[in-house]
């Protein structure tokens, strides 16, 4: 019954938010909510006997616990970061004080619906909560009430929601597939997984393709990625981190579950081919786009697209080992990417462009923001998959598996990775070389400790993950791969 603590906590926090007036308590409540969620998740992980006794609203297995763990960590970091960041926004007048309540309520609701989406036992429920994550994250993107933000937010809603409608068609197909002659049927993930092999594979293929459309849009797969750079770049950095580190995972989670179902049937190879193709396409588009980015956050956003493409490729490869590393990559990507967004947020606060729509002019980087600069560089090194960082391991593992299918996949992918790395470092070198003309430098922005702590934590976590397997991690991930429905004993 620990699971019920999630909604209880949310209701409690929302009620308390309702009576707050000043920023500090609201933001602390946000931290409390995220930390509480993380705590509950850890509690559930520690007590496996609780897993099956949940209410019909929850289904617990290793896979969604893993996702929830990431969610909890990222949300906690983001909410701590928000304490300082949002205060800065309010101080400078970017964020209207009156929007604060909407922001924090939206933040808590986003956390709640993400939780519910991960724990959703059946496809329809998952669809609904995934759709709601779009709604609430769009609120958070639009919160600054600048025209560009509203534009980005609307684009986000339109692209994701319309694609999600296609997914719903897929859900209807699935239901038709699962329906018993007496008209009842269950859309439970487990039930579908169990009987998928005995159903009409043509219809399942159509259902899957429709289903993928929506969740591909949610995780920013080309050609449905257009919303992502804008939404992620325009949102407040605390929100960008959550969008990149958690909300994209919702889409990936859906695709993963569906891949597991497909792998029970004979159409697995065709669907895998589609996934691999779109994964490669996404990566190429993202890598080439990265070459011509001028804005920090847009650059990071395109890197998210690239990583999502890589994850899609991994799910297409579909061997237990590939999926193991895919899950690992999801963790690594979320951790590193949020750290990057956090440090980009600090840079943005420092070098904020005062002309509407203009890019930030970054200069005198090390003199003015040594902390953020260091964090940003470490994050960049980590995100392109340098050894010692977790993304290296996962990229290595997945490419090895992909090489078994065709040698061209790792070849092209490595080329694209090189391209992405070149793009990021070209960008870094460009901003490092800049200096302000005398008297033009903006006032130094004093980074509050609230904003530094999550960055330090995330960077330390990523180094730790890269250096050693945490105790129990391997077994947990292997169990999660098993939950997807792809048999095999892992490594």
């Amino acid at each position, binding site marked *: 019954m620990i699971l019920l603590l999630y909604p209880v906590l949310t209701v409690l926090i929302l009620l308390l938010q309702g009576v707050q*007036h000043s920023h500090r308590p609201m933001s602390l409540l946000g931290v409390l909510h995220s930390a509480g969620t993380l705590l509950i998740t850890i509690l559930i992980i520690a007590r496996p006997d609780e897993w099956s006794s949940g209410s019909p609203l929850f289904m617990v297995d290793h896979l969604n616990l893993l996702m929830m763990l990431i969610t909890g960590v990222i949300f906690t970091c983001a909410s701590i970061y928000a304490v300082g960041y949002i205060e800065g926004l309010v101080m400078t007048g970017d964020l*209207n*004080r*009156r*929007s604060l*309540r*909407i922001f924090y309520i939206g933040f808590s609701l986003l956390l709640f619906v993400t939780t519910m989406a991960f724990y959703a036992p059946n496809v*329809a*429920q998952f669809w*609904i909560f995934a*759709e*709601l994550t*779009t*709604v609430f994250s*769009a*609120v958070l993107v*639009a919160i600054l*009430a*600048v*025209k560009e933000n*509203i*534009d980005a*937010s*609307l684009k986000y*809603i*339109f692209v994701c*929601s*319309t694609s999600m*409608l*296609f997914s*719903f*068609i897929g859900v*209807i*197909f699935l*239901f*038709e597939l699962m*329906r018993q002659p007496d*008209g009842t049927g269950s859309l439970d993930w487990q039930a579908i997984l169990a009987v998928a092999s005995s159903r*009409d594979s*043509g*219809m399942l293929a*159509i259902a899957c393709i429709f289903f993928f459309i929506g969740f591909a849009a949610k995780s920013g797969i080309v050609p449905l990625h257009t919303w992502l750079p804008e939404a992620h770049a325009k949102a407040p950095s605390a929100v960008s981190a959550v969008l990149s580190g958690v909300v994209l995972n919702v889409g990936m989670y859906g695709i993963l579950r569906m891949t597991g179902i497909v792998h029970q049937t004979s159409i697995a190879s065709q669907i895998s081919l589609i996934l691999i193709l779109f994964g490669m396409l996404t990566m190429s588009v993202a890598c080439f786009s990265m070459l011509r980015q001028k804005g920090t956050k847009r650059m990071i956003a395109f890197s998210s697209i690239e990583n999502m493409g890589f994850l899609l490729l991994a799910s297409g490869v579909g061997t237990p080992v590939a999926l193991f590393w895919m899950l690992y990559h999801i963790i690594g990507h979320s951790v590193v990417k949020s750290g990057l967004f956090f440090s980009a947020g600090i840079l943005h606060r420092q070098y904020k462009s005062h002309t509407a729509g203009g890019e930030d002019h970054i200069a005198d980087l090390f003199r003015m923001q040594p902390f953020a600069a260091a964090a940003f560089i470490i994050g960049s090194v980590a995100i392109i998959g340098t050894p010692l960082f977790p993304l290296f391991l996962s990229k290595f593992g997945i490419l090895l598996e992909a090489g078994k299918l065709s040698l061209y996949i790792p070849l092209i992918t490595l080329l694209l990775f090189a391209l992405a790395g070149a793009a990021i470092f070209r960008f870094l070198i460009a901003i490092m070389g800049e200096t302000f003309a005398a008297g033009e430098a903006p006032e130094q922005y004093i980074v509050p400790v609230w904003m530094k702590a999550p960055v330090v934590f995330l960077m330390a976590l990523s180094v730790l993950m890269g250096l050693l397997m945490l105790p129990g991690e391997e077994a947990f991930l292997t169990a999660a791969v098993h939950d997807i429905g792809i048999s095999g004993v892992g490594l």
Partner: protein
Amino acid sequence: MITNEVAVSLLRICLILVLISAACLLSTRNLSSLVRTYALQSLILVAIALLIGVLEQKSILIFIAILTLASKVIGIPWFIRIIQQRIRIQQDLHFHYLQPASALMVSILLILLVYLCFLQVLHDLFTRNSLFFLGSVIGVSLMLMGLIAIFSRQLAITKVIGYLSMENGVLLFGLFVTELPFITEFVIMVDLIILVLLTTILTVGMDSSIDAYMNRLKEFHLWSEEEVNA
């Protein structure tokens, strides 16, 4: 009581009317008639739900019909009309990518494509009940036409209507192919209403200046008065 033959032929007429309304949505430039067309389209859906309810003796469809009537025929159009008065835009004259004429062309091709695809996939349904098969084809076609409306329209508020019409297509498809549990339909409806409310409020921001937007947030009571004064 309506006999089965009459219900079937009425259903056919309704299906055709749905497509006609979709064609109108693609080519109308006047905002208020767009909203009216959408409301009519939803009304046709209500009729379809009732007719299927009569044909298949399912009382659940009557609830769905009532829900649709309340939300899509009355509620959402009313809300959009209010927003429309606030932003004082009557026409959406510009189209990207596709002019209405070519949009209609493309939709003809899409309908054909959907028909051919579904003939492969849903042959079971086709042999069982060709009318229901046609319904599902038209449902998906309506959805694709809504999609065309979304990306060929320029104003956010017309995009919202395109989205809503897509959603009608999904409902139509759901009605004909299978019956989902009522609770799911209900939650989806709520979900959509939240989405539409949000989008339209954002639309106000998009299609008007920011100061006006701030004022409107107050009008919609999203900002409470005490905080305004604080």
